[in-house]
């Protein structure tokens, strides 16, 4: 906040003083320059004739895709079931791995603050930085295409997410309860089961449902790289340019995602 004086001597309120104004202006200049550089990079790689054609092409695709081929739904039930399995079993599998990692990464439960904790954090970061599609690509190359590759891909990607939120929950627990259990002469495992686990249970349930919802969305596209689920059907339909089938698949995916989001919101509402 600053008061400015105009040339004829009257005082006017201004939000920023001169120094703030200059820094502000320089930041905008640098930001705009970076954006223009990036835009230049994109623009030079783009064939602008295609861009101006876009409305026509979009209208063309739209007219071909409508109406959706409703009869095709009968072939979609099995892939949809596969998609659900990939997401659910992937979440379960990831929890099995994420819970021990979270205990190793939390400051108050880790057996070793330096080596083991950092190793656990590295696992969390690696798992989080790599998209599930890249995991799927990798696993399809290693263990072959199919539902199993998708399931493992989803679980590997979810480890980081679940373990990160879970270890933050563990670090925020009430130490008094842990102390009370320790005072009864409980072993290390008993302290975990009776002192820590009941405190993080609501967080764990919330994280699980939240990640399950994200996993449903992600598992719909894993088929594009051959890892099973409804994406496989979409890839097939796209390859033969069967737009009425594509539009039906998109509709089914949209409904599946909205339903899973609704379920997840309801369950989280019931827990909290």
């Amino acid at each position, binding site marked *: 906040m600053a008061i400015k004086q105009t040339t004829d001597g009257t005082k006017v309120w201004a939000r920023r003083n001169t120094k703030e104004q200059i820094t502000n202006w320089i930041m905008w200049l640098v930001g705009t320059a970076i*954006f223009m550089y990036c835009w230049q990079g994109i623009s030079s*790689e*783009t064939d602008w004739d295609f861009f101006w054609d876009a409305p026509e092409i979009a209208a063309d695709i739209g007219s071909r895709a409508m109406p959706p081929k409703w009869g095709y739904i009968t072939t979609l039930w099995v892939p949809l079931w596969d998609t659900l399995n990939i997401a659910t079993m992937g979440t379960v599998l990831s929890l099995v791995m994420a819970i021990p990692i979270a205990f190793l990464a939390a400051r108050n439960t880790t057996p070793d603050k330096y080596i083991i904790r950092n190793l656990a954090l590295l696992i969390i970061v690696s798992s989080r*930085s790599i998209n599930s599609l*890249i995991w799927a690509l*990798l696993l399809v190359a290693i*263990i*072959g295409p199919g539902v*199993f590759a998708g399931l493992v891909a989803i679980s590997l990607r979810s480890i980081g997410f679940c373990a990160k939120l879970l270890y933050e929950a563990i670090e925020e627990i009430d130490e008094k309860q842990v102390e009370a259990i320790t005072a009864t002469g409980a072993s290390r495992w008993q302290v975990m089961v009776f002192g820590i686990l009941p405190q993080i249970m609501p967080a764990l349930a919330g994280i699980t449902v939240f990640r399950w919802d994200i996993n449903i969305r992600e598992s719909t596209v894993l088929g594009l790289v051959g890892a099973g689920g409804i994406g496989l059907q979409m890839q097939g339909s796209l390859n033969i340019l069967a737009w009425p089938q594509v539009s039906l698949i998109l509709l089914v995916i949209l409904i599946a995602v909205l339903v899973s989001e609704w379920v997840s919101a309801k369950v989280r509402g019931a827990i909290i």
Partner: protein
Amino acid sequence: MSEASLALGRTWKRPPIISNPNLRWALIIGALVYLIAAVMTIDVNWSRVYEGLERGKKFILAFSNPNFSDRWTDIQEGMLESIVMAVASTVAGIIISIPIGLGAARNIAPLPVYLICRGIIALSRALHEIIVAILLVAIFGFGPLAGFLTLSFATIGFLSKLLAEDIEDTDKSQAEAIKATGSSWLQWINFGIQPQIMPRLIGLSIYRLDINFRESAILGLVGAGGIGATLNTAFDRYEFDTAAAIIIIIIAIVMVLENTSTFIRGKLQ
């Protein structure tokens, strides 16, 4: 026997998490039935998996000896394109998100505007980036423009939603004080609402930049530009050492971005 000794003779049992026994057993049995059904329908070709373990070992070993040099020009170009796409789409996404976020906040927008903006947000959040990218590549052709548009569209759903929630949480009295001075609508937003949400908007924008970079790494799989195409080629040729190099670079950049964003967000609060 007296009541006291009865109480003494009992052992303590941990109270169950779900107190209603009917609901508890229904959930347990339901989960078991689903688990059995799911395991039965997932058919795994174990011999193929076993064969793959050899290749898996090779891939893990490749991480100790990543090959940066063979495809360095491809990697460099792909990475630069990914970063460019992430930055440009974050900026464009923020610019579009602000009006939509304002429209989706119930305390400042009238009902019809609110419903339209919430509809846009729901659509953007429901569609996975890759699906949007496929459609946009079909419409705009191959290249980073499709990727840029995809990421901008995805940014809208994320940023507008959180922004709208933040605007709904703002302090009413500050906005009212500005209104009492006889300000116009624009002045009201600019001086009454904007200062309250600015720290969070900056924090969210940096976080979204981080997400956009991660997502830009896969858009190349469907031809929308970025490092994904190079990565896909490396996997197709079983060049695990090059793939390992690319993945290491992605992890490093994400770590740097994540630490920067945590640092900046910590400073703002």
